């Protein structure tokens, strides 16, 4: 399938939204923006840039995307940075910081930063700014990870670099640290036209359930998530078993397994033990999954769960809400931003709460329809890629006038 162009989004978000984007883009004019990250493939950031950069170009903004280079030693360091910034205890030797800076300096020598706005994604290239002190353009650091409880030693090293930027962008107030520079909130976003989210024929959805031997003779409750303790698949099985005393239904757990992840097997064993030989519990493990099949599982489910105990932003919630599914989510991380309890889904804090929520939604179709419909609207308003395009356009306009609270464009 060829990548969608801006015009293709008219049908899903409405022509008025696309028209307003083009008006804002006309005010942005002939400006340019460069995105910089550390990988061209794999991971949410690369996936997002792959879509956002061409769409910004469709809007007339000259957008480019550069990927920094490095040897294995650099990426091992940045992987450990990633974990430590999200709170993992670790001590870093001074040499580690020197190596990190060496690769940033090397990349800086090979790159050019002539665009009006430079957006540096995540910690890997964050120090590039250090060699651009006399810049005339604007630099913004877009942090996609949770920095609310960073490893202090590492944060003390990185923070002085971050504070050289003109601004920083975080996905949520929950994830942002104290900084001496302005901070903006950009929610993460899903693409309604990619395979994971686009409309599917009912016959395809039926075929996927058939392929994996999941009868649709009773309501289906599904959680799509890695078999990871923080996603609480064991709690999901417990919730399902409690709910099924009152309402007949099936449980479907769908998860991916990374090639070198021994943790998955351990968690899966616990889930299997909890499930026993219950014929109404279906466990699927993919390596890797097919996006359209995940889409089909979500669309074909009566309820989608994301009963996490700890989360990043959990865009799987937005994926299910976009499909107008009633969603039950753990009240952690970015889930409450997507689910306004009782209006765009149900928030829960325990297996017991999840069980009650399953029973409520399966016995009250009006409630299920209402939260599904509202949830779709919530995603349309805040969590679609088109909204992120708008945020980048607004950022380009606002960075020109940092002192103004209200900007009138004439």
């Amino acid at each position, binding site marked *: 399938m060829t990548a969608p162009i801006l015009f293709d989004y008219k049908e899903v978000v409405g022509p008025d939204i696309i028209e307003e984007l083009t008006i*804002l883009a006309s005010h942005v004019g002939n400006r340019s923006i460069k995105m910089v990250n550390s990988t061209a493939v794999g991971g949410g950031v690369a996936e997002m840039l792959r879509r956002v950069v061409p769409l910004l170009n469709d809007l007339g903004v000259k957008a480019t995307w550069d990927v920094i280079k490095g040897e294995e030693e650099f990426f091992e360091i940045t992987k450990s940075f990633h974990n430590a910034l999200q709170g993992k205890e670790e001590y870093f030797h001074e040499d580690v910081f020197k190596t990190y800076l060496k690769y940033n300096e090397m990349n800086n020598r090979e790159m050019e930063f002539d665009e009006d706005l430079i957006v540096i994604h995540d910690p890997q290239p964050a120090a590039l700014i250090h060699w651009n002190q006399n810049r005339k353009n604007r630099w913004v650091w877009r942090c996609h990870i949770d920095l609310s409880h960073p490893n202090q030693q590492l944060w003390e090293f990185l923070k002085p670099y971050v504070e050289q930027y003109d601004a920083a962008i975080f996905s949520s107030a929950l994830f942002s640290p104290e900084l001496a520079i302005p*901070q*903006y*909130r950009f929610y993460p976003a899903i693409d309604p036209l990619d395979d994971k989210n686009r409309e599917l024929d009912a016959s395809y959805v039926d075929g996927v359930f058939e392929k994996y031997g999941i009868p649709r003779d009773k309501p289906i409750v599904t959680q799509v998530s890695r078999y990871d303790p923080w996603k609480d698949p064991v709690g999901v099985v417990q919730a399902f078993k409690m709910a099924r005393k009152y309402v007949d239904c099936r449980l479907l757990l769908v998860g991916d397994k990374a090639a070198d992840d021994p943790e998955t097997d351990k968690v899966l064993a616990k889930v299997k033990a909890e499930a026993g030989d219950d014929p109404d519990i279906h466990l699927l493990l993919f390596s890797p999954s097919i996006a359209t099949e995940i889409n089909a599982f979500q669309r074909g489910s009566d309820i989608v769960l994301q009963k996490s105990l700890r989360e990043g932003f959990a865009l799987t919630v937005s994926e299910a809400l976009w499909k107008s599914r009633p969603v039950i989510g753990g009240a952690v991380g970015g889930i409450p931003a997507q689910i*306004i309890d009782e209006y765009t889904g149900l928030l829960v804090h325990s297996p017991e709460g999840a069980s009650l929520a399953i029973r409520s939604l399966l016995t009250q179709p009006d409630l299920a329809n209402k939260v599904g419909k509202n949830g779709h*609207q919530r995603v349309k308003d*805040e969590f679609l890629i088109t909204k992120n395009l708008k945020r980048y356009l*607004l950022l380009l306009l606002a960075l020109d006038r940092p002192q103004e609270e209200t*900007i*009138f464009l004439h």
Partner: protein
Amino acid sequence: MADVFQFLSSASLVKLTGRKAHNLEEMLDLIKTCSDSSIFYHTFCAFLQMREVQVPYNNDFALWASRSLNEQALAEKLMAVDLSEYNTIKRLKIHLIEIIERYREQKPDAFKKIANEPFYLYDMIRIVYRTDKFAYGLKSFCEALPTVSMYSIYYHFIESRLRTRLQDNDFSIWIEKSLNMPELAHLIRKIDINLYTLEGLRSRIIQLIDQYLSETSRASQTHSGGQV
């Protein structure tokens, strides 16, 4: 000839402030000391978002008081604040402070409670811009209204009074002043925005115009001699 009505629209870039409140005392302090644009974000912008998903609260302060603090009486008082009555943020801010301070006198224990979730204070930059949609009279207004974005409808119906400093929506002002149709302007002014999503509001305005036109057409037929 009627003045041309150009539809405007607005959008916001949300800023993180790093400030939060864990209890009502801290909330009161936040409201007293935050920028006008923060108040705007948590009231006018929040209202726009909540209307679209039919959440019955009209500002983040009420939502937090209800959901995180379980102070339903305070939430109801904050919810009763009708944003369409405010044409300055300063007045709105004073009113919010009065409500919370009065509540402290009535229920001092509520101020000892710690919220389940803190209230995160946001700020914003507002960007107002012209669209390429115009109305030259009632007919072209009716033709344009279904094509403008909900943000444009929201801007003219609620938000613009902060710019015009008038206690009225732009549509009613234009229909009354430029089209000389005060009765229709009044009907639109009386719409209770708290009961509609913005799509619902759009439909309601169109419905009122249709009704008005058919009634005036009937009246003029009766006046000119009735059925032929």
